[in-house]
């Protein structure tokens, strides 16, 4: 143990530095909470008169609402189309998750269990596709999906785009997990007369539950947090996803910071909770992917 090593230094400067960092970290978050519960649309916490005293000025930067009110949340759902945007996000994310998990798990199963001509090329091509720059892909995708297929402002178009974005990572992740499941289980099932499909759906997928969960959450987060493609593909206001809608509140000449803050909290809380549970897997998955690449 390093007790003696750490014992050489006093801890209070470390705490001081950590506290400073925690304040810097939390300040923007409290700021959003304050604006959200302020009940107004203003960007500032309190209005400053031109000859404000130091007390007023300090009050203006203290992230705590003057009057506590949930009216922003209420009218976000009652007066603004936020519920619709949320529904869009939920539908698109759920469909992306389903498509992503289905396509990735079947492909990953084949890559893990079968040795067939084209296996290596297939796996490599998935990896290489991760290097295609997003914007380069967006121009042809926009032409294909919006101008050729006429799928602009539709769920199908955006779900397809998101699914393809998520597939490569999911395939590699699931393949890694399938590799750890012993083949004997499947072989004995095969002897018992189970079909390939039965083995996959009844035996392998249930065993791979943790990987399926991570893949599902990854696909879900990809779709839930994506901004620029949604902004480009969804032209109609009623088809916005939440990120596009939140930008809509404070982009251009619109200055509805109260709605933005309240909506941000609604959009971010579930994903932040998921993230905090998941970040362990994400770190290992990402760095493992980088080493392979």
């Amino acid at each position, binding site marked *: 143990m390093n007790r003696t090593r750490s014992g050489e230094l006093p801890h209070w400067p470390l705490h001081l530095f950590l506290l400073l960092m925690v304040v810097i970290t939390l300040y*923007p978050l409290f700021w959003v909470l304050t604006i959200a519960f302020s009940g107004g649309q203003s960007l500032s916490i309190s209005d400053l008169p031109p000859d404000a005293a130091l007390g007023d000025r300090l009050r203006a930067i203290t992230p705590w609402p003057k009057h506590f009110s949930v009216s922003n949340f209420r009218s976000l759902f009652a007066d603004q189309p936020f519920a619709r945007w949320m529904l869009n996000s939920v539908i698109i994310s759920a469909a992306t998750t389903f498509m992503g998990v289905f396509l990735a798990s079947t492909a990953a199963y*084949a890559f893990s269990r079968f040795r067939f*001509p084209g296996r290596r090329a297939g796996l490599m091509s998935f990896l290489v596709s991760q290097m295609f720059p997003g914007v380069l892909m967006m121009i042809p995708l926009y032409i294909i999906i919006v101008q050729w297929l006429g799928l602009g402002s539709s769920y199908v178009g955006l779900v397809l785009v998101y699914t393809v974005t998520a597939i490569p990572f999911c395939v590699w992740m699931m393949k890694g997990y399938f590799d750890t499941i012993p083949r004997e289980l499947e072989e004995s099932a095969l002897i018992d007369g189970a079909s390939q499909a039965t083995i996959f759906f009844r035996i392998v997928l249930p065993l791979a539950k943790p990987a399926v969960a991570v893949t599902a959450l990854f696909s879900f987060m990809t779709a839930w947090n994506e901004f620029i493609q949604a902004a480009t593909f969804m032209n109609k206001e009623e088809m916005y996803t939440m990120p596009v809608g939140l930008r809509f509140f404070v982009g251009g000449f619109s200055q509805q910071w109260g709605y933005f803050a309240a909506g941000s909290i609604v959009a971010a809380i579930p994903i932040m909770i998921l993230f905090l549970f998941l970040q362990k897997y994400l770190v290992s998955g990402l760095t493992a992917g980088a080493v392979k690449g």
Partner: protein
Amino acid sequence: MRAPLRPPSHRRRFVIGLACALLLGVGVSLALLTAARTAERHQLASREAVVTLRALTGLIERAEAPPPAEEGGFADELAGLDTPAEEPAEEPAPDEPGEAVRRAAARFAAAHPELRSVRVVTFEGIRLEASTDPADTGARAAPRRLEREEKDVYDQGQRLRAAIDENREAVAGGGSPINPEIAVQELADGGLSIAGPVESGGATVGMVQIRTAPNPAVRPPAPAWLPALLAWLAPVALLALLGLAIGERRTVLAAAALVLLAAGLFGFSRWVLGVLEAERRETARQLAAHVNEQREIAGQLLTEIDSTGAAPLDPLRWDVDLYRVPRELVTAEGTLDEGRLGEQIRLDAGRLTRSVAVLAVLALVLLTFIGFGGAAATGRSLVRYRAAYAYTLPAILAMTLLSFFPFFYGIALSFTNANIYNSNKPITDLWVGLDNFISILSDFSIARSTADGLVINYNNFYWTLGFNVVWTIANVVIGVTLGLILALILNTRGLALRPIYRVLLILPWAVPNYITSLIFKGMFHQQFGVINQIRQIVGLEPVAWFDGPLTSFAAVLTTNGWLSFSFMMVVSLGALQSIPSDLYEAAKVDGATRWQQFLAITLPSLRPALIPAIILSVIWTFNQFNVIFLVSAGEPAGATEILITKAYRLAFEQYRYGYAAAYSMVIFLILMAYGIFQNRATQATEAIGE
């Protein structure tokens, strides 16, 4: 499922291979021929309609501008159109042009049973000057003001006018016309709606729009089955016969199949060329006949309208392309210009030869593939591994259609001048070669000196690239330093509240980055932003963050620093915790100082985790779209734009798809180069480390 024991028959394979290769070559040629003939007929219909429109326009222009007003042009036009509305009773004379236009339109429509309607719109006063449309009778009869729901008609006219001005400028600048000056639209029933400008004294003063009934010339050509069948089956039969003599000698069989394939395709393409030429000649003949007919009708009408002294009609300018450039196919005497026609036919032949060459290569690949047993092997492994292929098929299909195909399509786009208006045209029509890349990469005018000092051109590629690199380095340095320091502190044994600090400091990574960006955009607001309020408490002046490049850079850097240090901290912390503590104890026993321990134990142990994390964060930051796009939006004047936000703006705000695709390709190549360099460098350091 096993390979057949009987040795494969080369003869059979080559016969099948030739049959498939010829089917591909002849089949696609036939389809191309049919498509070309159909297109030719459609084009004839639209060219005839354009000739009609131009003949009508010629009449209208002469009816509108009576001889004395000819030099006055636009000004007289104004007077002529305005006055009748204000004082119709006192001055009936100026009403004459409008009346003449209506008469010309009505007569013209009467002489053309194929015209469903003729409408003449005058921009001045937004008037429907004349109309033979059945809907425009009674209360809606011309002349009248265009109604609100007819705004698209007026807009179309304005588009044409804008196109003419723009094209005139482009041509004067040595370029070629950009936007069509004649609008052709196919109607649901197969007829055409065609609109063209009416000019007077060099200005565009109105628009003529005609709707035609479906042209009987537009009927699908009967596909020529017999020659195609002959070109397909004759060589195959011949090879089968030859095979009897050749036997199973593979090389000879391959040579014979190759010769027959070439002969079959060559023969068929000659025949196709002949058919195409005949079609061309026939349509040219019909067009010339149409021009002559129009000339006659319009000439007669011109005398009827009684515009004595009006300039004679100019039928040479009737058969024009969409930019109103004469095609010069029909001479002044009304005969076909054989030179012109020959030139077009030669162009056709060249295009056809290129297509057939590509087809021949594909057919040859197919022949070789089948003949030498590749197809048989593929078929066997498809059957043998059918389960594996069935499982991968959905994902591969999705990736091919929406990832690999778009990628290559994007590369192809980067060699074109595609934009929002022409992206439905075939890519070969928009091909500009390396022009986009040259104009991006060869523009070195980053800064120029003026009276006010050095002015930087923020739109220059190299400025954006330089900014992008500085941005990436600054962020990664900040992220790694901060993350590493925090990880080292949090790794201190016996430090109180460690788990709480850890969770709180991870939060920035958990917040979706578009939300972070919008939050910081709000906090950096000049007037109400909390950051300026904090500055004022300390006694500093508020700053207009996004008005200067440096302050704007500071704002985006702060935002990205806030959201990126957590990742580095988590990665470093994980690596630190996996260092066995006895290493440090052994070092202590050897009398190493803390700094020596850090250099000899901590840093080397961190490297395997930190290097991939740094590679990742370099790429993430280099492409950190949301922060730049949402916080600074490139302000001021594009100074803080990074390459991908710039490419996005080119594509989706300026709609220059081709140019933006080239821009993205350059970004891709830069990232590729970085990846290769990074790979080398990592391998090198690993080698040293070992």
